[in-house]
């Protein structure tokens, strides 16, 4: 699609084709209506120009038929756009299973990435082609946003919670990514590159940077150093606090009889605001760790608790994903 002058950015994810198709469709509708209205107006303006300063044209009252026609047709067209857009969006925002997870922390004005295998990067993200990648994103300060034009994805990173975004790159290459939520002085400098690599190349890259501790392992160390283990047991097998094995990804029954799905957001809340949702059979004795952990450390603790669960997430090895 790259002509002498680009009108659309490079298209490098499974999602970008869908977005482009819809974009072209709406463009078609827009061009059609704009031309239609312009032509009709120009035609009328020339044909019915004032020829005599005193002429008074005959009044025309209006027409119910026409009004209906030009309300219903645009409505129908608009609805096709709505449903199409909603469908693509829905799929894009549902978290995929079996994705490679990357932890992302934004802060004024840089991005930190950490792979599940421990590799850390700043303002650059290396990922393998043809695999689902899921970013779990947090921010230390204000709202930021990870925007990769070539993948047609964008999600705000909001303080106080995790947001996620996923994609599957289809073409190796170096793609710009930007912070797309205004965040202060250096907002326009808060970007970098997503480097999409062939599986083998990626494998090499991983092993070339393999000396760092995985987030789950770092989380495990903190689990001991912060004293979590004193209640939850050295291996999180339980004690004064509930066992954390197999919590992630399942439903937890709370003491008020409701259930909550234990996703990353739930784990985050359990650590920062443990009183909010109390597991049935336990008292509200867990202290809050609000203000004692950086977003990165928190993500590591969450990664550790997740690693205790059988709901496996993929590790970023280069095995091609099983194709169905």
């Amino acid at each position: 699609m790259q002509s002498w002058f680009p009108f659309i950015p490079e298209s490098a994810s499974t999602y970008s084709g869908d977005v482009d198709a819809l974009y072209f469709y709406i463009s078609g509708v827009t061009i059609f209506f704009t031309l239609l209205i312009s032509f009709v107006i120009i035609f009328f303006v020339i044909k019915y120009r004032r020829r005599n300063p005193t002429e008074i044209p005959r009044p025309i009252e209006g027409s119910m038929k026409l009004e209906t026609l030009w309300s219903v047709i645009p409505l129908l067209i608009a609805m096709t756009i709505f449903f199409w857009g909603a469908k693509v969006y829905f799929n894009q925002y549902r978290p995929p299973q079996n994705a490679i997870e990357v932890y992302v922390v934004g802060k004024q004005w840089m991005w930190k990435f950490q792979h599940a295998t421990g590799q850390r990067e700043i303002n650059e993200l290396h990922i393998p082609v043809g695999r689902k990648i899921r970013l779990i994103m947090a921010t230390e300060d204000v709202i930021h946003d990870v925007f990769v034009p070539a993948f047609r994805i964008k999600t705000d990173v909001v303080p106080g919670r995790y947001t996620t975004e996923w994609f599957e790159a289809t073409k190796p290459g170096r793609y710009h990514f930007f912070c797309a939520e205004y965040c202060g002085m250096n907002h326009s400098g808060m970007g970098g590159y997503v480097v999409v690599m062939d599986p083998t190349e990626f494998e090499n890259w991983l092993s070339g940077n393999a000396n760092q501790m995985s987030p789950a392992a770092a989380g495990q160390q903190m689990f001991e150093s912060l004293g979590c283990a004193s209640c939850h047991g050295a291996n999180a097998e339980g004690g004064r606090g509930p066992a954390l094995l197999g919590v992630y990804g399942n439903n937890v029954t709370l003491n008020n009889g409701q259930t909550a799905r234990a996703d990353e957001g739930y784990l985050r809340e359990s650590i920062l605001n443990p009183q909010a949702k109390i597991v049935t059979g336990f008292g509200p004795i867990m202290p809050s760790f609000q203000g004692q952990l950086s977003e990165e450390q928190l993500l590591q603790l969450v990664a550790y608790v997740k690693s205790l669960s059988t709901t496996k997430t993929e590790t970023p090895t280069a095995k091609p994903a099983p194709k169905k």
Partner: protein
Amino acid sequence: MEEFVIPKQAGANYLNAEHGLKSWLLTKDHKRIALLYLGAISFFFFIGSLYAMAIRLELLSPQADLVQSSTYNKMFTQHGIIMVFFFLIPSIPATLGNFLIPMMIGAKDLAFPRINLLSWYIYILGGGVTIYALLAGGVDTGWTFYVPYSTTFSNSYVIAAGLGIFINGFSSILTGLNFIVTIHTMRAPGMTWYRLPLFVWAHYATSLIMILGTPVIAITILLVALERLAHIGIFDPAAGGDPILFQHLFWFYSHPAVYIMVLPGMGVISELIANFSRKNIFGYKFVAFSSLAIAVFGFLVWGHHLFVASQSVYAGMIFSFLSFAVAIPSAIKVFNWTATLYKGSISYDTPMLYALGFIGLFTIGGMTGLFLAALAVDVHLSDTYFVVAHFHYIMVGGTLLAYLGGLHYWWPKISGRMYPEGWGRFSALVIFVGFNLTFAPQFVLGYLGMPRRYHTYPADMVSWQVLHVLSTAGASILGFGLMVPLIYLAWSLRYGRIAEANPWKLPGLEWQTASPPPTENFLTTPIVTTEAYEFAPPEHKSVVGRFARQPPAKV
């Protein structure tokens, strides 16, 4: 309507009824207050435009060369704040609306003249506080004041700017209140709802939004200011607050506010299209009620600004659906305007050129809103230059053109002088060309991925720079085009041809009194016996053929 007594030109009018600065600053005449607004608003437009030019110059090249990032951020913030809150929202309602609504409905003044003057002072106070914020060091939060940046992290004069907007909000509320009460209670005998000019309907709908939406932004800005002052935590996640709640509250007002900005423009266009083709508007009731529909539906779609802000996916779908629904009343208007031209007697006077330009540019601006309302496409386009192009197409290509068109159209009534027609047409054309060159490239830029509020962009994006250069070139033409009317309108105040009472030969009530009108508008309260835009007397309706008989000569 032949029975009107049109005052002699030489007689007293609202301009020369009293003299001296005090007579202006303490006036309760809606026409004089409109002129006070006109002056103040032009001033703010001028300031906002200077920022726009600085932004365009800076973006000529990918690096930072004119200013530093912190300055650039203040530039677009202040450009946005001034243009939105101090120029576009009051522009048409407070000047043309203020001047014309009482005249169009046959009243002597607005229902609450003192409150009308008070709203001007509030506006000046709010504007003054905001100007203070700019001079003291500026604000850099973006016109959207997103938390927690605005509450905790920004080092700029957020409280002062917020206070300015807060104060200004009451000016808007009081204007809306005044219009609503006036339209309900002050119509002349015989002026039924369905005889109201569409300009009045549009302002009625606008006033609804002003009184229902503005209080919410007031309380929201107040909370931001308090939070900043006392670090209390209502939007601060560290205290359990939720930044997204701020966004809901902000857009609950600010989306409807975009209809405050465009509805009065639509009202002007309805007048221009009907009057300059000498036809009653096609589908009067549809155009009238579509204004109300926009005002009501406009309150249901604010969440389309939060599609990527981690709002619930399902709420996103509801908001997307409703956003498409709100496009329909706008579509109805566009089609009815077009149909009004059919078999009309169309003149090419300057106001009509602006009106025709409006229809085209508003269509493009509105239709590109559909890209943004389509969830999956908005994910890519949100916070890019596509959005910037979208709203400039509506706000500049739409409302600003309508404002200029209306100003030319009613200039003889307001000033008692004609503007130079040749220059008028010339500048309308230049503005049209310059405008498109400025903002059309930004659509492409946006889809290519250029984020908005960016001081610098990657140098390897050659295509981006090409588009930015085009845009800046366009802005220079646009700026030149806008300066021409500024000059000749001022010139015409002194040297323009003296205007007759009804230079365009139109049936509207405002043309049935002297130019400029006397202080209480009409010498006697008019009694209305005809429909709006009734050029030919009713007995001509049955005549076959395109034209009715020659009209009875109007005075």
